[in-house]
């Protein structure tokens, strides 16, 4: 058979097709754009074009104070907002040198793990959807709704939670919410095994996933991968184990790794991580410490040299504030006592707020998608001088051309689905 144009079979193709993929395409989930160079159906090269959702998160971080900015972090990885809330305030607390009480830490672990489950569920569901299994998506969405209900019981918002505060939480977890979490823990394994039975040995699904988009361990490290994507390639790094934050040290769980490095391995790692998260939540809920959720008393922060927001640097002599200088007072106190009202205004008014050290800090957490870190520069004032977010999706999307080269155009959606790119986190 000869090619049109009278070319012999082994002569190189004189041209390549260029195909635009996105930014409005169902399989790009949101707003990614790829320009693919095709040789027939084979992808020769791919050029990602991003920024279709760049909304200036980091600039905004320089204009909102440490408590306000949490609302913006919600919208960063909008599939698991709680994980971002926790990451942001951990970083702020590290800058201030605050240690939150055990109950707060446990609740944060619970919500972060719930967020991980809901993120992985969406990712798995969408992987199924992209490869043609709509039922899988519907299966995955039901538990997500349950998680939304739990979050609603915790903080009143089902989706954009803004649950954490500097040095604590917006509200304590109510017994009702804890009961809901227990229910959820009972029900999810059944859904999970349904999902597993539907997909794990499904010929079509496995054929489309296995051996596609292979990432070797060395490449994964060289390209800065983290989270499930790195672990699917055999990197054992998990920040919850490697540098335990919150009280992850107290829980018994495994780090899920795979060797394959292909889309199927990433699928399996995510699936396994959901089960590990269930284990963590179970332990945390059953051993939930009593006590306050917000910081009380003094921590190392209060003894250090820090600066008043509205004073020049030379006046930083008298420093013996109480914890109320950092924690937003209880709403009840604000509405019913004058002290509460005053301390509330002291914190929220412009030019007030607490003081931060003139220092820089990087603090990372293991978000569902990988290492989510914040690099915060404090300049003494109530707002961050620079609030850099280290987004896992950004680093992972850069992998895409490497993963897709040589595969067919049908694999584009499989690889995209397995990377779980969240556009708002990608572009910020």
């Amino acid at each position, binding site marked *: 058979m000869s090619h049109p144009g009278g070319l012999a079979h082994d002569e190189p193709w004189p041209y390549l097709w260029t195909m635009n993929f996105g*930014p409005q395409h169902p399989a790009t989930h949101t*707003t990614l754009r790829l320009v693919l160079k095709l040789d027939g159906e084979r992808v020769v090269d791919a050029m990602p074009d991003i920024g279709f959702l760049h*909304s*200036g998160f980091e600039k905004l971080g320089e204009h909102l104070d440490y408590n306000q900015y949490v609302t913006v972090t919600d919208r960063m990885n909008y599939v698991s907002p709680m994980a971002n809330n926790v990451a942001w305030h951990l970083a702020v607390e590290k800058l201030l040198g605050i240690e939150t009480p055990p109950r707060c830490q446990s609740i944060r672990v619970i919500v972060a793990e719930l967020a991980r489950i809901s993120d992985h569920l969406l990712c798995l569901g969408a992987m199924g959807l992209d490869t043609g299994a709509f039922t899988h*998506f519907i299966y995955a*969405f*039901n538990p997500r709704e349950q998680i939304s209900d739990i979050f609603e019981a915790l903080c009143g918002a089902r989706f*954009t939670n803004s649950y954490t505060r500097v040095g604590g939480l917006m509200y304590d977890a109510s017994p009702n919410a804890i009961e809901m979490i227990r229910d959820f823990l009972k029900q999810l394994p059944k859904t999970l095994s349904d999902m597993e039975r539907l997909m794990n040995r499904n010929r079509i699904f496995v054929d489309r996933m296995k051996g596609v988009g292979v990432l070797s361990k060395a490449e994964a490290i060289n390209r800065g991968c983290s989270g499930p994507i790195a672990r699917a390639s055999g990197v054992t790094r998990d920040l919850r184990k490697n540098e335990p934050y919150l009280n992850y040290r107290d829980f018994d769980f495994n780090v899920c790794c795979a060797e394959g490095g292909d889309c199927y391995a990433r699928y399996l790692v995510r699936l396994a991580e959901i089960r590990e998260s269930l284990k963590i939540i179970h332990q945390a809920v059953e051993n939930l410490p009593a006590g306050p959720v917000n910081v009380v008393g003094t921590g190392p922060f209060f003894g250090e040299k820090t600066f008043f927001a509205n004073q020049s640097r030379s006046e930083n002599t008298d420093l013996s504030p109480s914890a109320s200088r950092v924690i937003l007072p209880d709403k009840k106190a604000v509405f019913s006592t004058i002290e509460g009202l005053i301390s509330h205004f002291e914190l929220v008014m412009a030019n007030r707020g607490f003081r931060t050290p003139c220092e820089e800090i990087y603090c990372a957490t293991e978000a569902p998608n990988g290492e989510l870190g914040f690099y915060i520069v404090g300049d003494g004032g109530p707002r961050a001088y620079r609030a850099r977010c280290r987004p896992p999706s950004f680093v992972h999307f850069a992998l895409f051309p490497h993963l897709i080269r040589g595969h067919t155009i049908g694999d584009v959606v499989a690889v995209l689905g397995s990377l779980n790119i969240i556009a708002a986190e990608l572009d910020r």
Partner: protein
Amino acid sequence: MAVTDVTGRGEAGPATIVELPEGVAVTKLDELVSWCRKNSLWPMPFATACCGIELMATGASRHDLARFGAEVFRFSPRQCDLMIVAGRVVMKMLPVLQRIWQQMPEPKWCISMGACASTGGVFDTYSVVQGIDRFLPVDVYTPGCPPRPEQLIQSIIDLQEKIQREGTLFCREFDAPSRQQPPMALRERGRGIRD
């Protein structure tokens, strides 16, 4: 066929009442067309950000948009007549949005879902368009950040009502001068440059 005096003035007027056979109803063609249109909206989910996830939740198992006849999400603008803009639209995305809007066949409607699509929301920054209605006609605004699925369903019901109320066969309602112009704020300031 019976002829009756409907004027009540004792004159045998030209008016007649026709007794219809069972199963036949009479209506205006406009209303019939609107009724058809409103019950088979095909949404084009222009989901850019967080609101898009709630849009997915609206279409997924619990909230099930299919109950209101608008579940056939189509990702090709050529097949749709309702654009749901869910999420913030930024500088780089706006030309894409406009292009997609222009590709949709008439009659078409637009729901601006969420604070960001309607006003820019929390993102009053250099790159976010402060409300898509500055550059596109919008029929229904859904408040919320993000709107709950119930709210989105409500705005679809509202849109259906609107279509029933004012829809015409040849879409004359879109020709009204008030609908030809960009919103007030833009008209007063020329191109809508606010700052």
